[in-house]
């Protein structure tokens, strides 16, 4: 009784969450090709909006029919404590409306993302500064974090650009079978590799195969981002 959260209105302690019976609909295996097609449709349906949040330095909202991710960047701001010669990036992922993911799972992904952005952001230019990035998974209907990762990277990258923080290259990634590969330099360089439930049948070809697919997605997303940024610039110039 003593450990209850005093900072929240919890309602009656005996209440149980609503549980729906599973609907026995036929979840047919989607063929690979269909998956690929779906992905493409998704890319087409992707909407990007920058500068949506007022009280931060940079922000991006990325939405598709399946998710809505809001990234906000706070910084560079001065940090307390000892001198650091480089900027420090922190990334926090937050469950949105529904608590889809466990905190540990989100922490794992965010520390992985920090790794990527440590190599993408020009940290030397931000000594004794902190760059705090918050990503709110407002809506996510997939319930599979690895499917979201490419868009997380995309959102953070664009929010950094919106915040005027120097990055070395546009970064994003692709996802195939729960494996995420993140690239820079037109796919020449891999900056991150996430393997979740995905499997390779101990087969190098498989790996290479998936890698190629991820790269293809990466290039696609990258084009999208560049187009968006160019479009934005044009608008700005016009106004």
């Amino acid at each position, binding site marked *: 009784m003593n450990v209850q959260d005093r900072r929240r209105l919890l309602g009656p302690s005996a209440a149980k969450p609503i549980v729906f019976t599973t609907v026995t609909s036929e979840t047919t295996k989607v063929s690979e090709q269909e998956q690929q097609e779906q992905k493409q449709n998704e890319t087409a349906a992707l909407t990007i909006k920058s500068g949506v*949040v007022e009280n931060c330095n940079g922000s991006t909202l990325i939405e598709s029919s399946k998710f809505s991710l809001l990234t906000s960047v706070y910084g560079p701001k001065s940090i307390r404590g000892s001198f650091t010669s480089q900027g420090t990036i922190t990334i926090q992922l937050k469950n949105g409306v529904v608590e889809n993911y466990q905190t540990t799972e989100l922490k794992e992904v965010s520390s992985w993302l920090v790794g990527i952005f440590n190599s993408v952001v020009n940290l030397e230019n931000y000594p004794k500064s902190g760059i705090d990035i918050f990503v709110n998974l407002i809506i996510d209907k997939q319930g599979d974090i690895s499917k979201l990762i490419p868009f997380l990277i995309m959102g953070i990258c664009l929010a950094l650009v919106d915040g005027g923080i120097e990055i070395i290259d546009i970064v994003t990634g692709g996802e195939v079978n729960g494996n995420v590969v993140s690239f820079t330099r037109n796919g020449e360089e891999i900056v991150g590799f996430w393997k979740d439930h995905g499997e390779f049948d101990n087969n190098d070809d498989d790996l290479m195969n998936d890698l190629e697919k991820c790269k293809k997605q990466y290039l696609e997303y990258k084009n999208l981002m560049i187009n968006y940024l160019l479009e934005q610039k044009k608008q700005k110039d016009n106004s």
Partner: protein
Amino acid sequence: MTDVQETIEVHPITFPPEVLARISPELSLQRHLALGFRPSLRAFDEFRDVQINEDSLSHFNGTDEMKLDTSNNILGSNVLKSGKTFVITSITGGIVEDTSSSINEDDIGEEELREMVNSNDKLSEFATVYPVVEVERGRAGACTDEEMTISQKLHDCLLHSRLISKRALKVKAGVRLTDNEGKTEILYPDEIVANEKESEEESAYAQIAPKKKWSYVLYAKIVVFSRTGPVFDLCWNSLIYALQSTRLPRAFIDERATDLRMTVRTKGRSTTIRETYDLMCDPEKSLDLNINKSNIAYASNFGIIDLDPEAALEQSENEDDEDEDTNMDVDEVKSVFLADLDTEAEETSIRSTISIINDKNGKFKHISLVGGGSKITPDMIKKALILSKERSTDLASKIK
């Protein structure tokens, strides 16, 4: 000590408006007000426009594609945008067993038992939601005082607004029957009544009707993005919109679970305990949350601040130079009345505020006057009432 003559030149420092607003919000606000407008460039009694975008969130009873999405557990939702700020509210639910009942027909929840004696207890017939407000401010860690007080205030205001009666949250539990062929069917008591001819089923239901009683519990998660000023109003309005879209899923219990008992033994003693069997919710059937429509009311807020003649820019000097001295002596403090406070400057400098929740007919649900600064006069209250009524009318019209 040697005598050193030093000449110090004093230069006035000037700042661009946005810098002044940061370092001296009060002065910046006064300068704006003296010129007749607000830092947000709104007129004194102008509200920010509000856009609501229902069903932009997944919504389990929404369109067909959402039908499978029962994992989301969202019963109602709203996205509200006002100025730069947007608020996302989602209503989720739980089910609680009504643990005790009194002799009379109505069920009374455990919490209210103490009030049972008093049949005059009007408020105990009403329920509220349990809100959790999160204001995103780029900081991690424990929730802030603002988040806690807004949550509690929403909870209190909703209870006292008598919007949701406890009766509306009663679960009319169905029973799932499985026939010999393994086909299942869910019987709901009210549906049976509607279909009078199926008296056979009715009696079947009566036989197995669960003896326990349940109620829905509503939770609201309210996330505020891009906070630029006070957000209570936005949270309340968003919550009210969301509740109007809320649907409660039908819930049922399996026939086998209606009378399950198990034996427990400890220290040589044993007893039979009725096994707790949770209600399941029907992903295909739901009912509108029956709120007391006449009690729907929307929130608005106002601020009053004294004009500081010293803070005004000296540009008016030429015009009423000679008046100035007399003005000072009279010391008649001029105050301005602002609607829908926003921006840091207004939030920190304005210490007299009026916050109102009412409907377009002027029926109040909540009012809070805080006079930490300028004097709140009856005229100002009246003005606030008129404006708040207009605002309520406008906000109510946004829902179709």
